[in-house]
């Protein structure tokens, strides 16, 4: 069926066919992603509602299922207020800077061993560099708002993101050391080998077990990277003000779209790097894209669970955790894994 469609498009568009085909594939990734972002907000409200013995949204549509659409429409119809003295172009550019990297990173994410938009060798490097651009959205929004509160908030959030990026990057270095590759597809394939995988209990040979400290560091770092609770200083309206205080309407909503898109992205990355991607946990079940979605959902659930459980961190505690706990831990584990790989006990041949 895919071949027939390809042939039809080729006849229809002729020389520009590769472009059309790529755009079609991009739409096939982005459209479900945006739908996922919309429904992640719904699931979040429902799940946290249940955890707090409430019902959650239940008025718009059956079980409140149309709620995210209604929220989106409401935000679209609201006015985007631009403060006096704000730098208008940068003010409007900032939310895009926050959102675009979360979409662009999907170009290299493999869904199965052949289902990937761009199979580049250095795909992990690509993702690290693209996601490092997201911090511009935060800095620029604070500066362009022409407000001291927003500016201070943006400094805080940007410093937080940069600090945790270091710990996250070091955790990734350990992963790519044991995988001996920067290609996400190869990293997943590498987790399907080993003693446990051959004996039909593949989930024990995924990276999360031998690299357990890095897995924990990565899980916490991604929560801090995406500005989620308990690291959500930007949203602590009552005690401290965040970078998006001056934003309203859709410009504000784009920051939240970016946050949820980033959540899905980092959950996917966690699934691929530590939880074996599309590999099946046990030998008697086939591998497939289904497993990837199960793992992404599980990591996303952890995000929501954490938000419903922990109180917000104080800013100096956040910085201490990042710089004085995670980075030394990562450095030590880097050396440990390096020695492990050079010793006869090496399990990653």
């Amino acid at each position, binding site marked *: 069926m895919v071949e027939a469609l390809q042939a039809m498009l080729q006849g229809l568009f002729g020389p520009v066919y590769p472009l059309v085909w790529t755009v079609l594939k991009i739409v096939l990734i982005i459209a479900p992603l945006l739908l996922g972002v919309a429904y992640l907000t719904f699931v979040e409200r429902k799940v946290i509602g249940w955890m707090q013995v409430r019902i959650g949204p239940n008025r718009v549509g059956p079980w409140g299922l149309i709620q995210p659409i209604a929220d989106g429409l409401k935000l679209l119809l609201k006015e985007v207020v631009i403060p006096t003295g704000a730098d208008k172009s940068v003010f409007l550019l900032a939310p895009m800077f926050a959102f675009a990297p979360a979409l662009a990173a999907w170009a290299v994410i493999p869904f199965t061993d052949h289902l990937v938009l761009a199979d580049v060798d*250095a795909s992990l*490097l690509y993702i690290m*560099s693209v996601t*490092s*651009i997201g*911090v*511009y959205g935060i*800095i620029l929004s604070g*500066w362009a708002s022409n407000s001291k509160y927003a500016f201070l908030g943006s400094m805080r959030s940007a410093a937080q993101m940069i600090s945790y990026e270091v710990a996250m990057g070091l955790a990734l270095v350990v992963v790519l050391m044991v995988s001996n590759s920067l290609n996400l597809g190869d990293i997943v394939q590498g987790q399907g080998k080993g003693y446990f995988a051959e004996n039909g209990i593949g989930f024990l040979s995924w990276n999360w077990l031998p690299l357990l400290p890095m897995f924990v560091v990565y899980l916490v770092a991604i929560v801090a990277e995406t500005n989620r609770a308990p690291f959500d200083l930007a949203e602590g309206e009552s005690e401290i003000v965040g970078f998006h205080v001056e934003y309203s309407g859709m410009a504000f909503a784009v920051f939240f779209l970016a946050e949820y898109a980033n959540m899905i992205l980092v959950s996917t990355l966690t699934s691929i790097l530590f939880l074996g991607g599309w590999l099946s946990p046990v030998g008697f079940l086939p591998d497939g894209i289904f497993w990837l979605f199960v793992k992404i959902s599980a990591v996303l659930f952890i995000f929501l669970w954490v938000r419903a459980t922990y109180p917000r961190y104080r800013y100096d*505690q956040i910085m201490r955790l990042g710089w004085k706990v995670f980075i030394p831990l990562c450095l030590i584990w880097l050396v440990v894994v390096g020695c492990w790989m050079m010793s006869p006990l090496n399990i990653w041949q």
Partner: protein
Amino acid sequence: MEFRTFVFFFLSGVLLLAALRVITARNPVHAALYLVLAFFSASGIWMLLQAEFLAMALILVYVGAVMVLFLFVVMMLDINLDRLREGFWSYLPLGSIIALLMVAEMALVLGGRQLGLLESSVRQATTEDSNVQAVGRLLFTDYVYPFELASVILLVGIVAAVALTQREKRKNKAVSPGQQVFVKWKDRVRVLSMPAEKRDN
């Protein structure tokens, strides 16, 4: 025109335009943002040369970290544009000497093909290996001492920066987290037992 050529000229055009705006933009934050755009276009051109590691590293290091700190500094400075323009004529001679030097250097590099400067003895990356592997292997074998030297210099830079900013003792009232953890409720809370009062009537 081949598609590749089109991409090259498009990226170069954007790069030149952005570089021009870096030096002509009145607002320093805008100038820094144009510099980010210039880095992006440059990394696109490197990507065309199949130097994907360099291209990604440029974005990861310069756009993702260096320019962010740059923006921090530029945003916190209270820059008065009129005062900046005052010394223009007195700085002109020194500035023009530096500009001339830069033009001469660029002429040497750009004319390098004629002068035979580009024939280096460094091995070209083989096509089977990925670019990252080739760079890594070269860095940690042939160039391991210069590489380590560079990292030590950077480390000295970090230590020096920290030492410069922390000369006097910091006046910090924060309690050490080690002590915070061992606080018991009895240290902070006093429970009083008071008999219920009766209304007097």
